[in-house]
């Protein structure tokens, strides 16, 4: 009998479009650590030690193939003085927009060293890197420069900027690009293996392709090129097919896929060019029985796993608080049952 691969070997093998021993499982457990710990999300994320402890715990409990250092998207807006709203049992959200369109003229690139929420993530990354010893991938997260303004300005104001104020849009992209690449590279230096680049705004669900290609796309290409490590582009469950070739051209090695398109179809379009990450429906998971969880895992593995180039995960990039732990355990059981190659 051969020894099982480490999580890192498994993932690297899949990324090179070969079949590892079994399908890698990325349960993207961020907020879920708070639920496991019995602490409120606010308390949980306030101390790096909490996050490290429960990343280690959940890795074992759910037989996960990665550590996930993500705290919450709104942490990045704290860099511009933004407030974060912390519900008792759900994901933190950005408070009021942090600047107006006019404010873009006076905007600066914040120094991440001065932002406690980001420094905590770096501390978590450093500690996990010493535990992982190169055998477990550590996934860091950034918001793309093109998607971050939804929280910086508010969604409506951002759409107005995008359509009607090109000069200020360009100025904001300059600042966000600088911030994003610095933040991504700091996480890589702290020990992250790869960066998950959340960019739902590039989905044709949100912005039409022609507008995206003339606005956000050049920014995304340049930013991803400046990130000194592997990048996973994630559209947070937005549709990917219409722009999949453009995403591949950014140099992203992994693509997060949602539920509105069949993994089969995306597989055909991308075979050999990018690794797919997905696509169990996290919003439905709270209502899944153990049997449903198992069926869903089997189905997606059969569609997408043959030949490698596939990592099983959820469709959004974060397991919701409300998902019962028995569902997560059934998912990892099903990976053990159906995920060994040949699948």
């Amino acid at each position, binding site marked *: 009998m051969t020894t099982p691969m480490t999580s890192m070997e498994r993932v690297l093998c899949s990324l090179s479009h070969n079949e590892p021993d079994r399908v890698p499982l990325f349960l993207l457990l961020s907020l879920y650590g708070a639920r496991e710990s019995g602490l409120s999300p606010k308390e949980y994320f306030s101390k790096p030690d909490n996050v490290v402890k429960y990343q280690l715990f959940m890795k074992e409990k759910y037989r996960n193939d990665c550590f996930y250092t993500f705290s919450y998207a709104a942490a990045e807006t704290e860099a511009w003085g933004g407030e974060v*709203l912390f*519900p008792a*049992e*759900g*994901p933190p*959200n*950005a*408070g009021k927009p942090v600047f107006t369109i006019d404010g873009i003229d006076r905007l600066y690139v914040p120094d991440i060293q001065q932002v406690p929420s980001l420094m905590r993530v770096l501390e978590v990354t450093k500690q996990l890197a010493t535990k992982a010893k190169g055998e477990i991938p550590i996934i860091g997260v950034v918001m793309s420069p093109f998607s971050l303004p939804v929280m910086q300005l508010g*969604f*409506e104001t951002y*759409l107005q900027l*995008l*359509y009607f104020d090109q000069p200020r849009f360009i100025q904001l992209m300059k600042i966000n690009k600088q911030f994003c690449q610095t933040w991504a590279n700091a996480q890589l230096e702290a020990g992250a293996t790869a960066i998950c680049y959340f960019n739902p705004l590039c989905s*044709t*669900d*949100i*912005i*039409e392709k022609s*507008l995206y290609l003339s606005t956000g796309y050049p920014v995304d290409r340049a930013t991803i090129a400046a990130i000194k490590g592997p990048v996973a582009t994630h559209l947070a*469950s937005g*549709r990917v097919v*219409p722009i999949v070739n453009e995403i591949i051209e950014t140099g992203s090695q992994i693509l997060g896929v949602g*539920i*509105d398109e069949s993994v089969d179809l995306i597989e055909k379009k991308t075979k050999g060019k990018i690794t797919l990450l997905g696509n169990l*429906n996290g*919003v*439905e998971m*709270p*209502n899944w029985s153990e049997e449903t969880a198992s069926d869903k895992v089997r189905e997606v593995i059969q569609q997408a796993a043959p030949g490698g180039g596939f990592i099983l995960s959820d469709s959004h990039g974060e397991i*919701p*608080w*409300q998902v019962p732990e028995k569902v997560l355990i059934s998912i990892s059981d099903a990976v053990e049952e159906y995920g060994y190659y040949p699948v």
Partner: protein
Amino acid sequence: MSEDLEKKQQLVRALVSVDKSAVSEILSTEFTTKGIDHVADTLQQALEEIGTAWENGSMSLAQVYMSGVISEEILNSILPANYLSKLTQPKIGTAVFLDHHNLGMKIVSSLVRSAGYPVVDLGVGVNVDNVIDFIGKEEIKILLISVLMLPSALAVEELIQEIARTYPDVKIVVGGAPFRLDTNLSEKVGAHEMGKNAGEIFEILSRLKRELI
């Protein structure tokens, strides 16, 4: 293609390319030749088509949003004064429950206003008590609720139970990403209707109006 269908198609193209002057010209011509009811009808059909196109992936949310904003603006500029107050439509209330993400609600209310319904907005981040007060004070007949976060969507169940106790005749329509991504959720929380896209609101309102009569 019939003349009406062609007009609708022209309008859809003008709306999604954010061409305000073309939209204004089409609607003004329709208004002078065929009257305001026809304008509202054409606009409603165009917006419905854009909403469905978003859901099946052929149009973007930005285009849906811009179409709503432009429609509302132009309709307001050509509507005869006090036109809306003469209509006998049920009063509609809108609220973003617990959440602070108002874009979905904003789009839906632009569409509903463009169809001539009186709409009152309670705002974002509201809780059960706020909604109950609001329904009473504003005499709301149909309540539209939007959420983006899953915990807010789940908490709608409690809100609906409270409304059913206090104002049993009020009709409740829910929408937003969690309801779209888990199509069983609206039934679970007890909503009367769920809109997967903003454009569906027209058909939903026609159905509910029949029930209210």
